[in-house]
């Protein structure tokens, strides 16, 4: 019974985190049709920025969290301006593939720059809140995990409200659903793209701050989140936000269950196996639609 409860609690924490990392990637794919390989690096940027503010400058971790988000968001917009915007609508190139490689290059450059300035060593990051929460006899989680779940869910809800209600949120959704129709409504598509890239990177940055006390801060702390985000995104169906949330919790559950009932060594291999099955049975994911190419 305790193990079941422990699994569910882990699912909630892990799933919320996965959703936070992946949702931005899927939002970018939905609007821009670019598989953004720089999403993991933005997680790392968030972590390293927060570490700089907290460990080097002695600022409050809460302030650091907000600033880290802003920095990641700005970098996301910058990478759009440098690496993607010039490729849009160019004749004679395959936009999806070229932009995909471009985001790879951005990720690699950022990662190496951080390595150059900060070194490869893993850095400690203090838990934002110390201590553990005892749920029942034998089941407890750290307050940091509680905080992670709460902040992730709050951020996802805020994103949901933004997309459904605000002027620019609706613009992003409109561009994702039908680019030509959106332009005929007077929606500036490029502004929607910049905003989407900023939002995606900002959310990844936030995830980076929340992961920092768990995984330490280092130039490659974004690698595992990137891999997990890819798995969740494929499982969800590229471009689907609702699917992302569902998929994140399913993947979170599988990871938690395998780790608790078997061994954490097999958590990733089991996920790979699962994704192979999904790709064979339903190549467009649980909530995606069969792909159609866009002109």
């Amino acid at each position: 019974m305790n193990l079941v409860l422990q699994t569910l609690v882990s699912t909630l924490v892990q799933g919320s985190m996965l959703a936070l990392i992946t949702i931005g990637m899927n939002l970018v794919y939905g609007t821009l049709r670019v598989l953004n390989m720089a999403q993991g690096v933005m997680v790392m940027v968030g972590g390293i920025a927060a570490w700089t503010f907290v460990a080097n400058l002695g600022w409050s971790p809460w302030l650091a969290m907000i600033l880290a988000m802003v920095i990641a968001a700005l970098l996301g917009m910058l990478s759009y301006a440098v690496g993607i915007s010039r490729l849009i609508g160019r004749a004679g190139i395959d936009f999806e593939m070229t932009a995909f490689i471009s985001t790879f290059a951005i990720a690699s450059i950022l990662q190496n720059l951080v390595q150059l300035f900060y070194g490869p060593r893993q850095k400690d990051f203090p838990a934002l809140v110390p201590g553990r929460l005892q749920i029942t006899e034998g089941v407890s989680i750290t307050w940091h995990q509680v905080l992670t779940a709460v902040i992730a869910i709050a951020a996802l809800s805020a994103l949901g409200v933004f997309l459904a209600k605000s002027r620019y949120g609706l613009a992003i959704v409109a561009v994702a659903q039908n680019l030509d129709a959106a332009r005929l409504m007077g929606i500036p598509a490029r502004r929607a793209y910049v905003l989407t890239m900023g939002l995606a990177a900002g959310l990844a940055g936030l995830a980076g701050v929340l992961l920092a006390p768990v995984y330490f801060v280092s130039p490659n702390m974004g690698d595992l989140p990137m891999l997990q985000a890819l798995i969740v995104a494929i499982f969800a169906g590229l471009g689907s936000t609702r699917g992302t949330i569902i998929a994140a919790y399913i993947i979170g559950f599988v990871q938690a269950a395998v780790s608790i009932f078997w061994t954490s060594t097999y958590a990733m291999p089991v996920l790979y196996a699962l994704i192979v099955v999904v790709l064979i049975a339903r190549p467009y994911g649980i909530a995606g639609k069969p792909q159609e190419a866009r002109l």
Partner: protein
Amino acid sequence: MLELTDVVAGYGANTIVQGISFTVKQGECSVLVGPNGHGKTTLLRAISGLIKVTSGTIRFDGVDITREKAEKLVERGLIHMPQGDLVFPDMTVEENLILGAFTRSASKRAKQRITEIYEIFPRLLERRTQRARTLSGGERRMLAIGRGLMGDGKLIMIDEPSLGLAPVIVDEVYSRVRRIVDSGMTVLLVEENVTRAQSLADTIHLVENGEIVRSADDAALLDERALRETYLGVSE
């Protein structure tokens, strides 16, 4: 109000509109008729900035808009009501309508306009919380028209309001189009069905192979023989 001079446009190396010139005067309804696949929709897409104009000029309200972006043209009051496939499929009817008033000036009047549009299209009111992808072809067409009316239009371009619809539905859609024309709005209508077009048009242009082959100020005067040649490929 809208003035085209030798407009050439197409997709990549594939030129579809081969030098078209005509004028739409304020308060008038101009109709482009002609069989499908002869460049009428492409021409509308070029005017509204969705595709680039290869050569020629387009002037709207006295300003050269040939190279202007689609989103900018909407602000100027050039509204393009596309065919029913260009709705937002996973948004509700009401969300689609709200997006029709995206520009700053139109968004101020969105609330009031939405009630007006529900009055014109009671069907959209019934379906207001339904996703656009679940609508029938006729309802989608009405949504595309209603959504266009949400904007601050000075000139409205309507693309084939009857394409692929059952005759009863066509009558319903056309009675709304007539209402728009009668309200004094400047309209550029694209239509395949000549009889439908003639009853609305002040000016009518016959489009064949991306060119205007015949124009008439009085729609009824459009030469029978020219029509037959264009549609049936018969020449006497």
